[in-house]
């Protein structure tokens, strides 16, 4: 029992924080909202150079071979510092592939940042894998992907796509080239300004098939969710810190607004939510890391953390008032990510049903 980072993790954290304070300025955030630019690529390169893209990639594949919890520390701190989602996505892609396919031939290129991996999971009309309509089938001796994936993060920025498809049995995982034949990418405007796309795979050839079947897919989901928890916790911390600072600085009616009991109590309630969420999240992350998840605890952590992050953002906005509402304030970037992460990784309904199932069925 040691619900705080190790000294090494604290070092990593400090390094990320330092990088963010230098590189992630509000001016850049406003630019990155529109499109990737040179400064975003430069930041990606810096992060690659620090070895962070390959942090969770096995040493044999050119990475650092760190555990998932260490990668989660990195991701959490990147989220806190508002590192572009495309870069967090690159870390996520490399880590996920590192976990489910530690011998994949493309891993080395992900660790260096030469390639990026987008994960094409969701479909427009399907929320569970058993409803996916995308398939992998052998045509003319070559396995090919057919189908449409929706809301694929960074699809156009990434050289490789990891597509979750079906082969007549369970879900299978196939790598394709984003620039290869049969891949059509249509970018979407999302309210959070991240870069998602609808992707059609019309017989796109499979570069590499990930072995492991449904278990590999299950593990992929766990890793994605673990890193989403890390992102949420990092963002939540940032919002709480910013709000605590603001209420001690802003004056109305002749006093710091922190002196109003109603304000203090909202901070206290934010604190409770953030604290509980942090521990639930890290407990789940560390147990995913050591493959020791029990029962409903991932569902519980996701549902609680997703809700808490959004609620904390709402309170943060409320206490910031107009000052937090201008587009230049970092707060709203966190609020966008809160909603976006919750929608993708922490939907309440399936989590509740999983927990209910564990309790009652």
């Amino acid at each position: 029992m040691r619900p705080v980072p190790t000294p090494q993790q604290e070092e990593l954290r400090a390094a990320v924080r330092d990088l963010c304070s230098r590189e992630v300025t509000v001016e850049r955030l406003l630019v990155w909202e529109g499109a990737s630019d040179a400064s975003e690529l430069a930041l990606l390169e810096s992060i690659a150079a620090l070895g962070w893209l390959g942090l969770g990639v096995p040493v044999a594949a050119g990475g650092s071979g760190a555990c998932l919890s260490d990668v989660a520390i990195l991701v959490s701190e990147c989220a806190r510092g508002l590192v572009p989602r495309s870069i967090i996505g690159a870390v996520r892609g490399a880590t996920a592939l590192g976990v489910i396919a530690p011998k994949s031939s493309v891993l080395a290129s992900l660790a260096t940042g030469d390639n990026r991996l987008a994960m094409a999971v969701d479909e427009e009309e399907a929320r569970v894998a058993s409803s996916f309509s995308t398939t992998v089938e052998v045509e003319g001796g070559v396995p090919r992907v057919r189908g449409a994936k929706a809301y694929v993060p960074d699809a156009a920025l990434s050289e490789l796509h990891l597509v979750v498809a079906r082969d007549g049995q369970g879900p299978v995982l196939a790598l394709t080239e984003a620039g290869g034949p049969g891949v059509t990418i249509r970018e979407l405007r999302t309210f959070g300004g991240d870069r998602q796309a609808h992707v059609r795979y019309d017989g796109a050839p499979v570069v590499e098939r990930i072995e492991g079947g449904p278990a590999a897919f299950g593990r992929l989901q766990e890793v994605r969710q673990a890193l989403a928890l890390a992102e949420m916790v990092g963002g939540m911390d940032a919002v709480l810190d910013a709000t605590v600072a603001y209420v001690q600085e802003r004056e109305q009616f002749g006093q710091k607004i922190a002196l109003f009991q109603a304000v203090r109590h909202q901070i206290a309630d934010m604190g409770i939510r953030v604290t509980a969420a942090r521990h639930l999240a890290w407990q789940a992350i560390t147990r995913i890391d050591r493959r020791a998840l029990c029962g409903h605890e991932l569902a519980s952590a996701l549902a609680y953390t997703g809700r808490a992050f959004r609620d904390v953002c709402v309170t943060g906005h409320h206490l910031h008032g107009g000052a937090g509402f201008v587009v230049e304030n970092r707060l709203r970037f966190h609020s966008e990510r809160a909603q976006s992460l919750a929608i993708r990784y922490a939907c309440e309904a399936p989590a509740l049903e999983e927990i209910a199932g564990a309790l009652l069925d």
Partner: protein
Amino acid sequence: MDYELSPREQAWREEVREFIGEHVDEALADETRQRGNEGRGPRAQLFLDALRDRGWWGLAWPEEYGGLGKTALEQWIFIDEIESAGAPMLPLTVTSVAPTIMRIGSQEQKRDWLPKIQAGEIEFALGYSEAEAGTDLASLKTRAELDGDEWVVNGAKMWNTMAHHATHNWLAVRTEPDARKHKGISMMIVPMDAPGVSVQPIWVWPGLRTNALFLDNVRVPRSYLIGERGMGFYYAAMALNFERLSIGSIGMARRHFRALVDEVRRRVVDGRPLREDPWVRERLARLQIEIDAAGMLGLETAWALDQGRVPAAESSMAKIYVSELSQRIADVGCEILGLNGQLHADEARALAGGRMQWLYRLSPMLAFGGGTNEVQRDIIGFMGFGLPRK
């Protein structure tokens, strides 16, 4: 006890609905959403002209000023129907500035300003808040000093939303620096083309523009101070009174909720109608209950106004309820729509018109703006239940 509209009120509702049926379509609602605070689009202008032709600009004005003198309940019906249809609301110039001038202005001031407002020739931005004086309005620092027959205005205003389209600003300024802070403020009209007035855009999260307004030795005639010197804080409070029905209106929330419900009725996910999902059913039912409850608070505010009371507690209740409920609708809406809920409203595939993410971004403002919900809760305690003030 009676909760039914009178035949006259019912007829009025029908009349408003009929008007809306004739003049409001999706294109107008889309234009209204897309323009945000970027001034009126052509469709909105047509709609507002039609309202004026119908005499409805003067809905809430006393009859002696050519108004219809509608009851508060009738005004509430109007606001509810307009908002619920997504049509543009009457400008604050008409609903807030004009009735204030009618009550506090001198005969001359009324003669100077009211006809121009009635003709739609001038439009005001409202300049109350400052960077350091938001909820605590009485702390404002923008000052005006008499120099001969002119006021010289210096200072800066924040959240001066319509400044980049308005012809004039309706400004709260400190004219009596030695008086106690509530007693030192006056209301003043400042033409936007006066030398020394400048506007700087401020973009806020929902994609809306507002402005900072800077006043650098701006000179306006002495007569542009409206009403009595030093009474501005109370005039601003009076203007608030005219907005009580709007700030607690559930119309907008109901419209967005309806769009969400419509989408749920249509949508199929994982091969199953979304409306069969127990979680979706439960969430929507809860929101419906809350909408029903919020509606009753708005109705009570209107009724109390018609009894000649200042429904400070009632309208604060409605304001709190609607603002907090809007946030919940947005949250539930985003989750129900799933990943699609993140799509920008301009994406053709965005379900429910992309309104849920927009409402998610807008709602915080509803809670901290217009007097934070903390202040509203204080008001309820003092005014509604006689709790002691500090």
